Structures are given as C-alpha cells and as structure tokens.
C-alpha cells in the first residue's frame, strides 16, 4: 500500500500527458449527449395514411378529419377502392390504409357493422405496428363520440383513459437519457482501464513493475481509482447537460444517483481490469470487452424492457450488473425513488463490485 500514491501519481500524470485521453473523456460524452437524444426516438410520427371511404357518413368524415389534424399522421389521399389504396401501399407512398366499409355508420348502432379494416406495412415493424394502433385509437375515439352524439350508451372504450405516469408526455428522450448515461459509464469505465493495463503489457513497462516489490492490491487500485474519479466526473458533466439542454433534472436525490453510479463504476472498471489481466494484447481485450458490453446493453433493459423478454432471458438479466443499475437509474431519475426503495439494487451492485474487483486483483499475476 506504501507504493499506491506513487503509482497513482504516475497514472494521473500519464493520463493528462496523453494527447488523446483527456479529450476523449470530455468530448465523447458531450457528443453522445448532444446528438443521440434527438435521434434515438421510438415515437412514430408522420405516418402516411390512405383512407378508403366506402361510407361517406359523418362518422367517416370525422375519422378522416381527425387523421388530418393529428401530427402523427399525414393523410395522403382518400381512395375510391381498396385496390387503388393497396397499390399506393405497395409503391411505398403510404404506410397504412384505413378502410371504412359501406353502411358503417348506419350499422353502428345495431353493433353489427362490418369492422373497420386497417392494413399497415409491416416492413418497418415499429412504424407499422404503432401506426396501426394509433389508427385504431383514432377510430375508436370517433365512434365513441358519434355514439354519444346519437344518444347511445357510452362504450367501454370511452371510459379508458391512459395516462403515462413519470414521463407524462411519453417523451422517449427522458427514457433514453438515463440509458445514455449508463452506456457512457460502461464505455469509459470499462474500456479505459482495460486498455490502459493491456497497453502496459504491450509496451513492456509492466515487466519493470512486476520485478519491483509492488503489491497486487496497490497495483490494481492504482489502475482503478483514476477511472472511478473520471467516471464520476463524466456522470456529473452529462447530468448538467441533461438539465440544461433537455430540462431533465433527477427526481430522486443526486447523492443516491452518485452512490449507485459509483458502485456500478467499480464493477465495470474491475471487469475491464480483470479481462485485461487475462489477455495478451489489445485485440483480445477489445473483443472480450465488446462481448460483455453487447450483453450488458442488450440484456439489461437499457433499450428494450426486461419485462418483454422471454422468461429465461429475464433470468439471465439477473446475473448482469447493469440490469440493477439501469433499473435504479430510471427509478431515481424519473420516479424519484430513494435508496430505501431500491435497496435490492444497491445491494446487488455492491456485491458485483466486490466480486468483480476481487477477481480482478487476484487475476493479476506478476508471473507470466
């Protein structure tokens, strides 16, 4: 432990002397935060719709009107028959067709009407399925209104009011920004320590360290601590950007966020170090790291919700540290949860941090 300050001083000196690293840890997060929230949106807008109106009733006009008025849809024309509309769908001019059958309104009150037919282009699965659902919602709404006007009883759908809690406008950005923060921590705190260590292997400098009396824990800590500090600074930086640029301030306490982030950073940097200890060169390190990062990003609920995964995959996410962090970050940021609410996540992250760092320190061998 006596040598730890010496090693740390060297690490920081080399970090700031590098022509590349200090810039990367500032510019890379800024780039990500400035650009990615605008482009990774799952909100589908401007769905091109063709309507086949076989009814020409007030209900039909109301539906068409609603489609025209909505910013989710662009009405590309009202066709005389389905075949004409289908040709436009095939040509790619429209994403969805809404067909209102003959005598739709008249049969409405009798509740025996032929159903409204929606055909959506499924090539772009997200646009197709969301477009279809949006259209169905518009039709349901119009029908309910019409039935009320006609003095009929309120249909059940009219009573269903969906309100999105915690992210009232369902702004996808608010969902993505905490996820981006996590990705940044994965990249910076996972890759940098790994590359740093394997760089010492490639340049041969580690041989000089290995023949010195430096202890395993001092060595491991000297490699980890700089990236803990850098990770927390980067997190602070992106939180400020999120607040200033996107108006997203954490609902929960900042201390709780930093505690969760610190535990996660310990885990990631320990993982990077352990992998570098066991690899001989950059390629090996990078490849194995990418493997883990892919798993972490795709299996942790970062982009797709864990709940929609198959059961076995949900089980798998439980052994991945980011799952607990993703969960905690969203709850802290959007729901204003407290450490007490999330104690399971904190405990899991702390366990991962201990286990991974223990493994990393033990996998450091002075002998080749």
């Amino acid at each position, binding site marked *: 432990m006596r040598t730890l300050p010496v090693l740390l001083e060297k690490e920081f000196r*080399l970090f700031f002397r590098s022509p590349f690293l200090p810039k990367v840890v500032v510019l890379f997060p800024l780039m990500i935060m400035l650009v990615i929230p605008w482009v990774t949106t799952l909100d589908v807008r401007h769905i091109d719709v063709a309507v086949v109106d076989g009814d020409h009733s007030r209900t039909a006009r109301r539906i068409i009107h609603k489609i025209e008025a909505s910013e989710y849809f662009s009405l590309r024309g009202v066709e005389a028959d389905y075949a004409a509309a289908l040709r436009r769908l095939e040509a790619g001019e429209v994403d969805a067709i809404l067909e209102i059958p003959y005598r739709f309104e008249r049969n409405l009150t009798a509740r025996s009407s032929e159903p409204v037919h929606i055909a959506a282009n499924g090539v772009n699965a997200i646009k197709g399925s969301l477009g279809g659902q949006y259209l169905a919602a518009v039709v349901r709404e119009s029908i309910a209104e019409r039935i009320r006007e006609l003095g009929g009883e309120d249909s059940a759908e009219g009573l269903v009011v969906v309100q999105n809690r915690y992210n009232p406008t369902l702004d996808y950005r608010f969902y993505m920004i905490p996820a981006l923060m996590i990705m940044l921590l994965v990249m910076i705190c996972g890759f940098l320590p790994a590359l740093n260590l394997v760089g010492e292997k490639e340049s041969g400098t580690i041989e*000089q360290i290995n023949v010195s009396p430096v202890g395993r824990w001092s060595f491991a800590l000297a490699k980890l601590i700089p990236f803990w500090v850098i990770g927390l600074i980067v997190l602070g930086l992106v939180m400020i950007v999120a607040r200033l640029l996107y108006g997203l301030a954490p609902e929960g306490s900042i201390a709780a966020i930093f505690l969760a982030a610190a535990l996660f950073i310990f885990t990631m940097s320990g993982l990077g170090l352990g992998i570098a200890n066991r690899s001989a060169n950059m390629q090996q390190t990078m490849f194995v790291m990418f493997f883990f990062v892919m798993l972490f990003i795709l299996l942790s609920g970062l982009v797709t919700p864990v709940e929609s995964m198959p059961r076995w995959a949900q089980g798998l996410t439980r052994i991945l540290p980011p799952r607990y962090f993703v969960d905690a970050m969203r709850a802290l940021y959007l729901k204003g949860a407290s450490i007490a609410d999330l104690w399971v996540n904190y405990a899991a992250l702390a366990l991962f941090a201990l286990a991974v760092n223990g493994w990393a320190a033990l996998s450091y061998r002075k002998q080749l």
Partner: protein
Amino acid sequence: MVGDVAIRVEGLVKRYGAVTALDGVGFEVRRGELFGLIGPDGAGKTTLFRLLATLLTPDAGRAEVDGCDIVREARAIRSRVGYMPGRFSLYADLSVEENLAFFAALFGVSVRDNYGLIEPIYRQLEPFRTRRAGKLSGGMKQKLALCCALIHRPSVLLLDEPTTGVDPVSRSEFWEMLARLRSEGISILVATPYMDEAQRCDRVALCDRGRLLAVETPDGVVASFDGVLYALSGREMFGLLAAARAEAGVEACYPFGAVHHLRVAREFDPERFRRRLLAEGFHEVGIRRVEPGIEDVFIKRMEHE
C-alpha cells in the same frame, strides 16, 4: 549458504508447450563477477533472465539469486535484483527524471539515496532531464534503463542484451560502466549476441538451443580451441567459400567479417591450396594463419552438439 555465490542455477528447465526453451541449465555466478551469456537468438537467454527475475516459474530444476530461491522467495528477490529487459520498457511518456524518481519510489528509496552509484551514468543524461524517455536515442535509453535498474542499489544486476541495437561507441561506454559497477561489488549477469563483448566478461557461458556448451573465462574459451585456423580472402568471395568447402583438408569454412575462416586438418598445406585456387582462375587470393576468437570456438562447439 549465501557465501560467495550471487546466482546459482541447477538443472533449470522451462518449456513453452512443445518447445523447450531451457533444457537443464546449470552454472554459478560468483559474487562481484561480471558473467556473460553468449549465444544466438533463440538460445534461451531471455527465458533464463525471466526465470531469475521471477517473471516465470521453472518446470524443473532450481535457482537462487542472492541466496533466495526464485520460486519460494520471489518477493525477497524483487527488492535485491535490478533487471533490465531486452526491450526498452520504461514509461515513454514520462521524462528522464520522472522515470528515475518513479522507480526509486517504487522501491521505497529516493534518487538522492543512491545517486552516487548512478552518477557517472546519469551525468550524461542530465542535459536531457526533462525530455520524455521515448524521445531519447537508443544509447541514452539504455543508460536511463540502467540507472532505473540500479536506483535501489541491487546486489545482483540482470541485463538482457543491453547493447543490442546500440551504436559501437555507446556499447563500449556501456561496458565500461559495467566494469565500474562490478568494482562496486555488484554481481552482473549480462547476455549479448556480440562475441566481441564476451572478452570483457570475467567468465562466459556459451549457450545454444536451451543448453550451455561451456562455462569458461574468455581466454579459457579461446584456449580450448584445438584446431588450426586460416583466414582466406580474395576477389570472388562466394566462389572461394564453395571451393574451400570442397577441399579435402578443410574441416569447416564460414564467412567471418570480410574474410572466410577455415578450420583445417594438421596436414593441410595452405600454400598449395592458394596456388591451386589461382590456377582455377580466382584473383588476389590470400591465405594466412589467424588466432581463434570466441566466435570460432562457438561455431565449432555448435557443430559438435
């Protein structure tokens, strides 16, 4: 048990998969001795150094450095040994003085403590104190590496090909420094592929393909050469090599600098050979008796293996 032995190696074996890098090597380096390991690339020199520096563990055999076993007492060895790997392995982005201060601090000493030991070497580096180590010339890098390996005043110095890739003047200076360090009582094991450097050692070990061929003083090595040696020169060097190899009394012929060395049988008549070569159309043929060097011994020993 320490006594006057700095390094004791007994039956050391190291394998990398199917390759045997060291095949039962044994020798001793006395305290205060400058001991040379001479051998071509792939002889196992680097493996031996890594074993002695505790970077590797042997598959069989044992070794002691400064009285400490390289496996059981690896920790103790690390603070008593100065190791300079064959490849430059200081921090290229740290300056000369930062590297030195860093390695001193790692061993828990300050540069000032042992400055006297490195002063003659470091004086030459002084003008480049603030230059980054990666930007030094090859010779300067080696001097800095030697300073860093010495800064904790080790009792044993392990130098793996310290002069490879260094210009002749710097090489010569480097060996002068080693002689001075020996006079300070530091035992030195140094590897080199240059036969001329062997002459500067107290004793040398000739090694090839993981085995030691001989352990001797440089003069003893040369004296052990029991053949007759001639140097052959001429205008058509390549043709001469083939002609000499075809000659009956010639045991071996190999290029040696600007001439060919011929190891010959007792009954060999150089003058008759020269006249015949001239008659065969070779020009400016010269042949003269020469004293063997370590390299000649080495080549002969390698043939007998």
